[in-house]
């Protein structure tokens, strides 16, 4: 295992733990609206945008595993959606410049829509499960995800630039 690989694994583990802690903490603030506040989607897209498509796909698989383990839904469902989203987010972020916060917001919003659409598709079309719309709050999920990813990636880039300087 090369140093960059082991560093990516460590960063991925920390990002997953952070998403888990944020999700656990959010229940204290807005339990019925947790559907709109997907900390795992933020972790997957932000990690993919920073580290690339392979890291994004692995992160998506890991986050999906955790989500499915803490849900009575079909085990493996969230993982497939998150893996594809992580891969595509990493791939697109490598092809186009998404460094500016405005572009990152737009890019992560589109990735958030993709993630949500994949999850809805797999949940309702293939497995016939109901979608929890929470009175329409679920539709805000891509926007909230985009905001979260923009904050995380901007903070990461600033910290990294400060450390490298």
């Amino acid at each position, binding site marked *: 295992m090369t140093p960059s690989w082991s560093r990516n694994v460590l960063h991925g583990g920390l990002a997953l733990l952070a998403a888990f802690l944020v999700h656990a903490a959010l229940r204290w603030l807005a339990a019925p609206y947790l559907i709109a506040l997907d900390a795992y989607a933020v972790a997957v897209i932000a990690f993919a945008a920073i580290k690339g498509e392979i890291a994004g796909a692995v992160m998506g698989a890991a986050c999906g595993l955790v*989500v499915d*383990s803490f849900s*009575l839904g079909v085990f493996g469902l969230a993982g*497939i959606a998150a893996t594809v989203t992580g891969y595509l987010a990493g791939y697109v972020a490598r092809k186009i410049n998404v460094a500016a916060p405005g572009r990152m917001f737009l890019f992560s919003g589109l990735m958030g829509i993709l993630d949500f659409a994949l999850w809805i598709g797999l949940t309702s079309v293939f497995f016939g499960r109901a979608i929890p719309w929470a009175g329409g709050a679920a539709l805000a999920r891509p926007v909230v995800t985009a905001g979260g990813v923009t904050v995380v990636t901007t903070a990461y880039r600033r910290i990294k630039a400060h450390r490298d300087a």
Partner: protein
Amino acid sequence: MPRFLKDHRAGLVLAGLLVAQLTVLSLQVPLGDEPSYLEQAVFFVLAPVEHAVHGAFAAAGRLWSRYVYLRRVEVQNQQMRDELFHLRQENILLRGEVERLTDVREIERALPDVHGAFVVASVIGLDAANVYRSLVIDRGARDGLKPNLAVLDRAGHLIGRIANPVAPREATVQLITDDNFSANVRSSASRILGQLAGEAKNGRCALRYVLATEDRLAEGEELVTTGFDRIFPAGLKAGQVTSIAPGSSLFRKIEVRPYLDFRALDRVAVLTAPARERP
């Protein structure tokens, strides 16, 4: 590394991950609702972390409410004194009634069963994909919890049942609003029987298998468990009928508002003996 693998590394990783997850999905099929070993393993490892997060937030909350925000304490104190007074009076009257109606030896036999019949637990996590499906509590197999035990809120309303996975110190609760939840209930006034089922998409429930010709059921009626399903004991309040529509089939379409309220769902009680084992 061969050139092909190098050129297509990302695509191969993605394909490998998807195949692995489809394998996990297909392995789930013969298990039905039983969690796989992988799912149980992740739950067993991460549930204590969630427990710790809950502990940290609860400690911060206690610090705030005990030492900083004391504005409502006096009012609450007075309300609780009044409530205690009323409950004491009620208790005295009920004791008298029980003694009048039942043989003393029978009461002595029954009281220890009532005393040890439930475990109090704190809610430490909600379902990661849909909050109306399940939650995680801080009691587990070590406290005698096992699947199919009824779970009640502070007011004694039915909110769900214990489901797999059950870790030594944590357990999953399938909520009354989960799509796969089902309990046999009857309406309080008209005594009409039906099957209460969850609707996770809107956090509500539905009363099923009430014939379209049945017109005694009214909106606002309370639903209580019958005990016929041998899972939930009889008499637990589950929800209120909010709307009754004719429905397109043989049965009426009846919507039920469950008593489940996330804002008041910090502590729950688990009835530790399944209905079929209870005296």
